[in-house]
């Protein structure tokens, strides 16, 4: 698998570290359903998925990756900072 880092170009998978699904993080310090949902009830989509990947062994940018979990096709790779995720 190869991913095109917006800063570094196409790079091998081994430079990247998976950082989980890109989900909206709930607000507030009180435990509630939204937090439970965010922490524990994860979808396992067959199809388009938005994920964070860190270019850890590269430039260090955290990337927002949109890809298809069935075909592994990558639709978009953008910097998480500024992506408004």
């Amino acid at each position, binding site marked *: 698998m190869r991913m095109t880092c917006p*800063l*570094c*170009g*196409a*790079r*091998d998978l*081994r*430079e990247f570290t998976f950082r989980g699904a890109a989900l909206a993080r709930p607000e507030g310090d009180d435990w509630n359903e939204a937090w439970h949902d965010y922490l524990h009830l994860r979808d396992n989509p067959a199809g388009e998925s938005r994920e964070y990947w860190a*270019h*850890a*062994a*590269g*430039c*260090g*940018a955290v990337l927002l990756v949109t890809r298809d979990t069935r075909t592994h096709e990558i639709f978009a790779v953008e*910097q998480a900072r500024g992506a408004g995720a």
Partner: protein
Amino acid sequence: MAEPMLKAQNALPQGEALVLGDTRIDVLPMPRMTSLMPGPGHAALAKALRKHHGLDLPDPGGRVSSDEGECLWFGLGQYMLIGPAPSPLLAGAATLTEQSDAWTSVLLEGPLARQVLARLTPLDLRDASLPLGATARSEIAHMMGSLTRVGSEAFRLMVFRSMAQTLLHELKDTLEAVAARQAL
């Protein structure tokens, strides 16, 4: 004082480490290295760097050098000023962090250099992807590193100081294997 209280020590013996045919591995001296992190917006740093060091701020994957020193792109929001001591006047435009002791630099040069690197890094080393003067952050022998093409067949490799011996060991072993293949 006749004797300094503390003696400086490079992580590796400086100079020639292995020469096979026309390909060589040399441990480079430790230059002054300062990390420059401009934070949001790079314009102020670009201006200050030009003014105080006569260097342009490189694009991602780029390196700008002059007789005085070089500025190396070093990752997201980070540049490495190599050579000169940073002007204190840069401080308003970027945070400055001393990194001279954090990295060990090795030069790999010669006709087999690219073949050696093909066994140590997943980077695309072809001219189109890594032209002269280009730099990349990547894995080198499973270590986080920096690779800069400083000549048509010359590459400067940098890894953390603590891993310098592993880098040298991997480079030597790989050069020997590549040279044996070349001799077939």
